[in-house]
């Protein structure tokens, strides 16, 4: 499993640093590897092309003539799928990891609650980014490149490759300024108890801000698209 591979790499990193790097010991590293693995599917880290596909084929007309808000419509469908994928593809990696390693599980209910909220927001940010990226299809008929770019940047700056605390300080600072960290790195840190007390609220508030800002971006793009752009096909 990919989770194991990443776990061993991070163990190696920790060992090379004399058991600890950037304040992270082996236990944190390993748990981080598995928790981010669990977050992948539900936050749409593998890309999302359904809406872009409908724009390309012109089927998006059907979405446009329903008496519902197009963005909320897709958000609802995303939420349903995301809840399902967290269950089916999020929990197994954690269980598998727990078989071999001693994972750091939140000790108290409060951390679990904050973590749950953080995951929901991470998924929401994932939606908002992919929605906007999909809308690019209104202008560039082939928006797959944009989607892949998002995936690539997310993998790197989100901490899916290695935790961003391992970056040089300036690069970590950049990563923390981007929304991608809020999709994987931050919820993982919450799980690891690295945002204790009021820190938890700050983490959630930052995520919420990104969610709202990116939703707004999608909304502006949708408005521009329906005003100016063209629907394909008869």
């Amino acid at each position, binding site marked *: 499993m990919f989770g194991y591979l990443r776990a061993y790499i991070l163990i190696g990193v920790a060992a090379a640093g004399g058991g600890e790097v950037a304040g992270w010991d082996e236990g944190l590293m390993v748990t981080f590897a598995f928790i981010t693995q669990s977050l992948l599917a539900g936050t749409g880290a593998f890309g999302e092309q359904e809406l872009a596909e409908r724009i390309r084929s*012109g*089927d998006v*007309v*059907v979405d*446009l*003539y*329903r*008496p*519902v*808000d197009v963005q909320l419509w897709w958000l609802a469908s995303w939420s349903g799928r995301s809840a399902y994928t967290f269950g089916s593809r999020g929990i197994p990696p954690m269980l598998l990891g727990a078989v071999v390693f001693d994972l750091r599980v939140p000790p108290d209910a409060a951390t679990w609650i904050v973590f749950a909220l953080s995951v929901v927001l991470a998924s929401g940010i994932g939606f908002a980014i992919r929605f906007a990226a999909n809308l690019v299809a209104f202008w560039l008929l082939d928006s797959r490149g944009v989607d892949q770019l998002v995936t690539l940047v997310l993998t790197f700056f989100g901490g899916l490759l290695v935790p961003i605390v391992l970056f040089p300080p300036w690069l970590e600072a950049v990563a923390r300024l981007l929304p991608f960290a809020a999709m994987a790195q931050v919820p993982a840190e919450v799980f690891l108890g690295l945002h204790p007390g009021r820190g938890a609220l700050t983490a959630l508030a930052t995520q919420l801000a990104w969610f709202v800002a990116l939703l707004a971006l999608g909304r502006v793009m949708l408005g521009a698209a*329906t*005003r*100016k752009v*063209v*629907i394909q*096909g*008869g």
Partner: protein
Amino acid sequence: MASTDQPAIVADHLEKTFAVRHRAGRLRRHRIEVRAVDGVSFRVDPGEMVGYLGPNGAGKSTTIKMLTGILTPSGGSLATLGLDPTRHRTELAQRIGVVFGQRTQLWWDLPLADSFELLHHVYRTDRRRHEENLGSFVELLDMSSFMLTPVRQLSLGQRMRGELTAALLHDPALVVLDEPTIGLDIVSKLAVREFLVNLNRERGTTVLLTTHDLDDVEHLCQRMMIIDHGRVIHDGGVAEFKSTYGTHRTVVVDLVDAAPPLDVLGTMVTRVDGPRQRLRFDRSTTTAAQVIAGIVEEAAISDLSIEDLVRQVYDAGG
């Protein structure tokens, strides 16, 4: 069911231009403007059933997309049920029904019945009214045998009945149908027609439909509009249309070799393009069979077809 005399649709010098870019050489790009709809004006009153005809690429679908608020006009003005469609798209969606024959608004993976249930929530229709409508549509369109079949497994004719139902469950005052009979066999076509006539008669629903099938128009509409190259070239009663253009037919023959105009009793050659000739005849005095027999006697032919009415109007108008 419109309670006021407010027109269902008013289009005034409606225009839509598409900018189409295409490559000319390595780097240069040409930008061409396509005038898909070029100054279309018409008015549809509540309770009317209007056929909107025209050859491929005439601008029918583009007009419909503007009427429903999906595309923004490039010029002119438009009111659908008194609303500016682009500005009130969602509000309008609640009051109109739309079928694009080549797309589906049903959910591929769900049984038809579940799709309808979802639409009940999407349109927030009254539960009792929903059940009532659904019951009557299922009966009228004979859908009970495939209500539990996933949409992806339905035949085209079955799916189209589902689409019509989906477009009408929320009691729209206006339905806009873009090629609702495309690809249907005679039985399904008749079912759809009968259903639409019934809908219009019983509920007073205004219907605007595009089709390539003149038969549809003859059976459904009192009025037809013909559009070509983005312009309306005919707007009037169907009966009147038929008496103007109805008695003449044109036979197009492809001869094996170019020949002088054929001399066939009861016909007149209207055009000669090399081996292709067009012969016009009056349906009330000569039958197509007589004409064909006459042609076969005169010359060796490789292909032959009879053009219908609408085609002749396109030619006249273009």
